[in-house]
């Protein structure tokens, strides 16, 4: 592979690492505005990470090695994931190693390690969180897979860049199946990233929290990695969304540095819009009871499958 490809690959990852916390900050700022609160700085997440990294780590006595490895694994998987989602350019050597299905697999890996780590100390909240996380996951994962299936049936491949390139190449047309899957994807995104209505990232209200419950025992650098990883996850999901539904502006294979430099502002625009949209959804919707979450995700799953059927029935564009 040529150095150009390597560069774009590295750039992709670095951008993701850098932009993920910012995106998180942006979303919470928008939420604050919508709630008529004084908004925190967009860079708050960076400060948090910095602070956490400089603290002394406190670990439960009976925490095993798994508990300490988990943050690195989760973080690592998220970074790799970021490396195979075309956010800036479609020319990504790593993509050869992992297509969309593998991407879903990567997310699953992260989730499993997260849950195992949460069960490791053996506290009430930890196991509770792990259970709920897996509950959300086992419904969200197939839904996401179905969404990707529709896209790959349309474009006859499961490699993300190829998909987005194919979709981008088409004339702008409202594919009904994509409409269905779009809704499904949004729901999955909300659930997977512990956003309202499934979870509330802002609180530690025991009975409702999912994601936070799993991190309770973490501190300092481990917590920092976990937080960063979850920011990355949100970022990745957003980028998947872009690649599938608004694939324009991603530098295709041929294009060189120029295309990249062009892609960056486009991505920024998309992220800003997406963040705002996310904030709006979160503000408008109310937190569901945990036991309602499965129905929420089941809806997502059904929508995705409907999208699949619609595609085969109408043959797509």
């Amino acid at each position, binding site marked *: 592979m040529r150095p150009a490809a390597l560069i774009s690959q590295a750039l992709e990852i670095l951008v993701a690492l850098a932009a993920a916390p910012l995106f998180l900050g942006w979303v919470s700022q928008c939420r604050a505005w919508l709630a008529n609160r004084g908004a925190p700085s967009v860079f708050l997440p960076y400060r948090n990470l910095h602070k956490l990294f400089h603290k002394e780590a406190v670990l439960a006595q009976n925490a095993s090695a798994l508990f300490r490895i988990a943050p690195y694994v989760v973080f690592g*998987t998220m970074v790799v994931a970021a490396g195979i989602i075309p956010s800036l350019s479609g020319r990504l050597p790593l993509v050869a190693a992992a297509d969309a299905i593998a991407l879903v*697999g990567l997310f699953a890996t992260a989730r*499993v390690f997260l*849950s195992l780590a949460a*069960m490791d100390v053996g*506290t009430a909240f930890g196991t509770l969180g792990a259970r709920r996380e*897996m509950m959300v996951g*086992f419904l969200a994962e197939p839904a996401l897979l179905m969404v990707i299936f529709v896209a790959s049936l349309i474009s006859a491949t499961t490699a993300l860049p190829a998909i987005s390139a194919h979709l981008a190449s088409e004339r702008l047309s409202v594919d009904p199946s994509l409409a269905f899957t779009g809704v499904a994807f949004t729901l999955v995104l909300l659930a997977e990233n512990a956003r309202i209505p499934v979870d509330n990232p802002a609180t530690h209200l025991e009975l409702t929290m999912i994601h936070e419950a799993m991190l309770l025992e973490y501190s300092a650098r481990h917590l920092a*990695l976990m937080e960063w990883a979850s920011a990355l996850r949100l970022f990745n999901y957003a980028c998947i969304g872009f690649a599938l539904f608004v694939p324009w502006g991603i530098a295709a294979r041929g294009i060189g540095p120029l295309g990249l430099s062009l892609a960056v502002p486009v991505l920024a625009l998309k992220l800003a819009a997406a963040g705002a949209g996310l904030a709006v959804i979160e503000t408008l919707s109310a937190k569901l009871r945990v036991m309602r979450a499965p129905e929420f995700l089941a809806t997502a799953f059904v929508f995705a499958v409907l999208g699949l059927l619609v595609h085969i029935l109408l043959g797509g564009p």
Partner: protein
Amino acid sequence: MTTSLSPLLADPLADCLALVGAWLVIGIAGLAAPRSVRYAGRALFALGALVALALAAVAAWSLVSGVTQTQVLPIGLPDLPFHLRLDALSSAFLLLLGASVAGVSLFSAGYFRESDGMAPGLLCLQYHVFLASMALVLLADDAYAFMVGWELMALSSYFLVTTQHRIPEIRRAGFLYLLMAHVSALFILLAFGILQGGSWHFTFDAMRTAHLSPAWAAGAFLLATLGFGAKAGLVPLHVWLPEAHPAAPSPVSALLSGVMLKTAVYGMLRVTFDLLGHPVWWWGLVPLAAGLLTALYGVIFAAVQTDMKRLLAYSSIENVGLLFTGLGLGVVFFGVGMPALAALALLATLYHALNHAAMKSLLFLGTGSVLHATGQRNLGRLGGLIHRMPWVAALTLIGALALAGLPPLNGFVSEWLLLQSFLFADEIPRTFVNLLLPLGAAVVALCAALAGYVMVKFYGVIFLGQPRESSLAHAHDCGRLERLGLGWLAALCIALGLAPVPVIAALAPVTRQLVGSTVPQAGASWWLLAPVPHRAVSYSPLVLLLAGAAIIALTALLVRLFYRRGLRRTRPWDCGFGEITPRMQDTAEGFGQPIRSIFQSFFAIERELPTPFDAAPRYRIAISDRIWRGLYQPLWRGVRRLADAAAVLQRGRISAYLLYSFATLVILLAVVLAT
């Protein structure tokens, strides 16, 4: 080229026979000192492991060298001596057998002790007869030899299942197992009865050439599906499996789940593609639908189990479902004239068979070690073992992650292949079918995700958290031999996960034999798996792993470099909650609760909820199988009723008996006069 090599390589079939014979000899040698654990329990099993390794090597060799050998043994029926045949298909499954048995036997060498059950010598005999009979099933080239091997397999494994024959439940399980095995064998027998096509030659060669009318052929296929399905545990014929597999000693459970179930898949492949030859596309829908149902059913039940071995048994049901799904998809593709895609689907099946053999054996052996260390099978009494038994915990983790289908381990590869082949289902030139099949993909995805759930429950509850019993404090890690066995299987999982391309290349002859086509490897290098060249689809676990490892290492390095602050151990925080006890953790039931509430309709649930006024409040929940209640119990009752009705005839009154004779006589005479 084989001739230039040593005679050993020249004649793999003879080698296989020699090795199978060696197994039998080892088994019989066990009777020399049946009570001696050192001799029968350790030495002989270790020897058997070596034989298995050799068998795997031979099978691998014959697979790559692509020879097809036949041989006739002078035993069997007068007109039907044992025909044997070693071709790609049988070599592949022999490889599976040898590779996984090597690990299991190694483990067993350290596992079996003096117990109140059978003497080690007898175990040794039954165990090795079991292995030999499985090998015979794979090598058989005529119906009689196949059936002998098949039933011998069931019989020997029955004795292994009922090792602890003093426990009534285990006897019951054994009874149910042997009964189902025998009935399924009868179905298979009848399938062969059709296949020989009136030529009264029961050799597979005769069956390959026999011409059957479509109706007969379909009948044979359905009978075979019933027979092999019952053996493999397809819903609704699965009821025996979660009883029998946990009842056996763990190494035997490993063999039952890991290897024996695959012989059913082998038989299915053999009958469908080799003996019947030209399957009609709609046949495939039967195993496909049954497989999907089975997969979902199995994984859902696995999620709510509280006995670790039952949990694994149900997960085996799930995987069998996936195997049959792939097989059915293959039949459909082949039937509509898409051999390349059929090859892809069958490849997924074969690959998954290999994977499941490795990982399920690994996990069952892991539970065996836990069982030995703690004497507990109930998940509600385990926990925190990762501190006590690090080896078992580490090696089992690999198996659990693999079974959860996570990259870069092996479980994911076959899942990936299966999904890929589903992605082509919309190209099938049959309306409505191409509409329905993608839904199968949805089910598969759901099952895969649920498998993750199950594995987190399995691993987390056993090894993580705090010990739920004080007795667990002095659990001990497993011995060296057991470690070796577990390690071997874990290594298999990793190898199968990281190097799919060579494995697929090795399996290519099999698909060529079955559907006359292989999965194209164009554009693929040894590290890059690209089964569908015209679609830019590829997967490379190795690269993925390296990238991930690199990033993780880098992160760790950076963290070390810039933030070297200390690390302090203290009580868990748990939101500042006061004293925390093991009882505060989720129980197995608790962890399964979401599944239970979401898929309520699948279970027959009995709850025993405490009232606020209970002195000693108690919460009990019993989950049972609706199919058992809805199908088998009525069947049993029906037979009982029939028997009662028949008993009325036999009331001991001699006049009545005379009357029967009289009536028979008169009726027959009337019949004769009438004609």
